[in-house]
Structure formats: C-alpha cells, structure tokens
C-alpha cells in the first residue's frame, strides 16, 4: 500500500501560484524528504497531505483515502516547525497531548510516551515545564509527542530549522533512530541537504515558486544510519547530486 499519493496536485492562494502540478508517492514504511529552498511551498505541500488545506486541483490520497479522513482518524502525527508545547503542561503531559485530544478516536496503543521520553534522554525532565528546557529538548518533546500517537504516518515540517548546527546533527541522528524503531511512513520537509540524506530513503527536490519537483534521488545508504555515515564519500555523492538539483530548481 502507499501511504501518500499525490497526483497533479496544485495550490494557488489568490494570485500566488504556490505549487505547480506535483506527483509524489510515499510507500508504506518509507521515509521521504521534500528538499527545497524557503518559499518553495514545502509547508503548503505538508498541509495538503495533513488535510489542513485543500488542493486547488489534483488528488491527495492519504492511507488509502481522503486526507481529511486520515486527520479525523488521528492517523497523522504532525511535528510543526516550532515545537508548539503548551507552557502550562509538563513535559510528560505535553508528550501525551495528542493522545488526550479527540477521544472520539480509540487509542491505538502506540509506544508509551514515558518510554519514548526515556529513549530521547528526557526522563529526568518529565515533570519540568517547557520554559525550563533548551530549544533542542523542546523539539525532542515535540518528536516524542508525534511518535506517541502511534500514527501510521508522520509529517514533519522543518522541525530542526531553529536549532544550532550541533544540536541539529544530534536531532537528525535521534530522529533516524526513532524512525527505524517504528514502522511508520514519514514525509519530512527541510532545506538542509545533510538532514535529507541522513534520514531518507528518497529525496524529492522542489523548485522555487511555483513549487515543482525537479528530480528525486534514491538514497541507497545502509540502515540503520549511523552518525559516521556523514563522513562517507557515498554520503557526499548523494549530497552533491541534491545540491545540483537544488541549483537547477532555483534557476541558477
């Protein structure tokens, strides 16, 4: 089965042409990254898949049905650009927010939030409030919150964009590990080439407005992905190809 299938999807906001026809599929259990510069419509693409926005034309199929239906069934774990932790909830309470909300949908019995928190090294901070955490820690809570939902599909919108380079590297290593532990399909959006290569099975490169897929690259690097992989010539080779595609998409 395919987790996501976009065919001929376009999006306009008034006179702004955000997305040109897009065709993209994400297979079950696959990690696909959409790589593109700011303003290429990455976030819009993610919102379309998440059922938070309707396409102007074309069809969006998520988990075999309509995106809105997947959203209503809580089948989508969303990681926004900002961690969006609720400041009045503790780390542990934030980690289980998506489970607490919309109880009309029965709980799937995904991984326990507490275990996930332990997994990302935040056990000692379970009772802490978001303002007591560093930026990287907050984003780790946001990841746990999404994984704890136990959803078959995860959508991630540049979750590490606001972090420093060292923390970003740690976070992508952590995310790769979490993805390998769970069998969920992931659509990840970023402007970081290293992030896209390290995490993905496949990378689709988006051009500047209107966003259009200028090419896709299969990342045939061994799993589980280890941090040392980033010093490997094979890693550089994929990075180089993606950089070339990005330049092509930017019309340079």
């Amino acid at each position, binding site marked *: 089965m395919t987790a996501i299938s976009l065919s001929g999807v376009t999006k306009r906001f008034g006179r702004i042409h955000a997305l040109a026809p897009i065709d993209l599929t994400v297979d079950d259990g696959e990690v696909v990254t959409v790589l593109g510069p700011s303003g290429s419509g990455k976030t819009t693409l993610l919102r379309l898949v*998440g059922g*938070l926005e309707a396409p102007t034309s074309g069809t969006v199929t998520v988990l075999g049905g309509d995106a809105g239906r997947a*959203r*209503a069934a*809580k089948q*989508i774990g*969303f990681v*926004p*650009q*900002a*961690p*969006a932790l*609720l*400041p*009045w909830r503790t780390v542990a309470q934030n980690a289980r*927010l*998506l489970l*607490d*909300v*919309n109880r009309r*949908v029965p709980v799937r019995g995904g991984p326990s939030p507490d275990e996930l928190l332990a997994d990302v090294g935040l056990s000692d901070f379970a009772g802490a*409030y*978001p*303002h007591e955490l560093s930026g990287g820690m907050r984003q780790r809570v946001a990841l746990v919150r999404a994984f704890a*939902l136990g959803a078959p599909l995860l*959508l991630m919108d540049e979750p590490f964009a606001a972090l420093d380079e060292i923390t970003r590297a740690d976070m992508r290593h952590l995310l790769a590990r979490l993805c390998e532990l769970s069998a969920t399909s992931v659509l990840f959006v970023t402007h970081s080439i290293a992030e896209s290569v390290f995490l993905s099975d496949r990378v689709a490169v988006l051009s500047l407005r209107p966003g259009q897929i200028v090419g896709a690259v299969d990342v045939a690097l061994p799993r589980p992905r280890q941090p040392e992989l980033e010093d490997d010539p094979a890693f550089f080779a994929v990075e180089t190809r993606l950089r070339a595609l990005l330049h092509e998409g930017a019309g340079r």
Partner: protein
Amino acid sequence: MTRPRIVLASLTGLAVFGLLWEGLVRLFDVKPFILLAPSEIVAELGNAPARYTEAALVTARHAALGVIIALVVAVLLGAALAASRFAEQAAQPVLMIILVAPWVAYFSSIAIWLGAGDPPVVFLAAFVTTPAFVFAAVAGMRSADPAARELLASVDASRWEVLWRLRLPSALPAILAAARYTVGLALAAAYYGEGGNLSTAGLGAIGDRAAAAQFGPALWATVISTVVLGVVFLAVITIAERVLLHWHASQRDTALPRSVR
C-alpha cells in the same frame, strides 16, 4: 529586593500615609464628615465591629457574585467572539457603551426593574465588569499559539477542546490582569447599589444613611471597610495568579542580572 524588605517598605509607606492623614486632620481641625482621622475611624469600627463585619460580608458577596457572573459571561461570549471577527466587530460598540455609560445614573432604573434586595446590586456589579473581562478574554484567546492550534487541528480536535485546552489557558493571564481592575469597579458598584437600593444591608446602605445624616464616623468606617475588602480581593487574585499561572513568565523571578533588567 528581599521579602522582609518589601514588607518593611510597604508598612513604612502606609505608616507615613496614616500619620500625615492624622496630622493634617488634627492640625487644620477638619470637620469629621469631610475627612475623619484614622484613629477615629478605628474607634468607630471598634464600637460596632459586628455591624461593620456583617455589612462587609454582604458587600463582599454582592461584588464577588457580580465578578463571577461577569467572568462566566465573558468566557462564553469571548469564545464566541474570538471565533468570529464579524461577531467581535458587532459586539465591540455595545461593550464600549456599557463600559463608559454612567451606571450611577441608570441604577435607579435597574432598582425599579429588579426590585429591592440583592438582584439589582449583583446585576449592576456583573454588568459593569463584563466588558473589561470580555475584551481580555477575546484578546487572550486570540493570542493562542497558532502552531499549537495547527497541531490540535492535525488530530481534528473539536472547537470545545480547542477552547478548553488551548484558548482558555492562553487567555488566563489577560483575564486575571483584568480582574485586578474589575474587583475595584465591582466593589464600587456594589457599594453604590446598596446605597441606592431599598434594601438595608451592606456597607453602601450604612454609608447612604450616614451621608444623609452627615454622620462622618459611620461614613468613613464604610470607606475603610470597602478598602479592606478591595485589598482582600486583590490578595485572592494574586494567589490565583500564583497557582494558575505558575507556568507564565509573569510569575517568574527574572534571572537576568541587574545591569540588563
């Protein structure tokens, strides 16, 4: 500043104020009805403690009930207005009119409409405090983190859940800040309502009779009793802020060094 120093500073301020007041009244031999010396107010309160305590409890009940009703109305109305710009624009002028209308003038109409006793007094206290609460509730609910709203939408949270889990907690700091202003207003409205009402209970009723008889001690005893009620109300709000807003930046000691504060 350390806590003992804060207490010391506050007490010093009050003592200086009280001594100046006492001194000026004695020095210029001010008539009791115009301004009564603090020592004589204390003596009057001591003469009939039960009378003033009972009256103060009545006034406290009127004001508190009014504020609570206004709060509930404001949260419900605020949720509706925060959801629709059109409704907010439609309600804005009406709330403004209520906010600025001279309630001292129209209270007799309310008293005739609702009759004697508690209803007109509580109604007035609730009516005059509602607009400030509504403005605070709408502004606070609108300030809810858009990313968090998107996150809740991603799991199809109901409107009610978004209100309960996100909008209301986001509005709490603004609502409690508004409460600091509205408790004073509610007490004034309750006091005035008790005076202009046909009932005989409450500090306002004592004050009204004292004013009619130009009897200074009773009048000033009710003024001070109302002040004490106001201070107690503010203390309650401060405690509520400590408990409910412990997560909010306003309740944290700044960790910044003195030089960059």
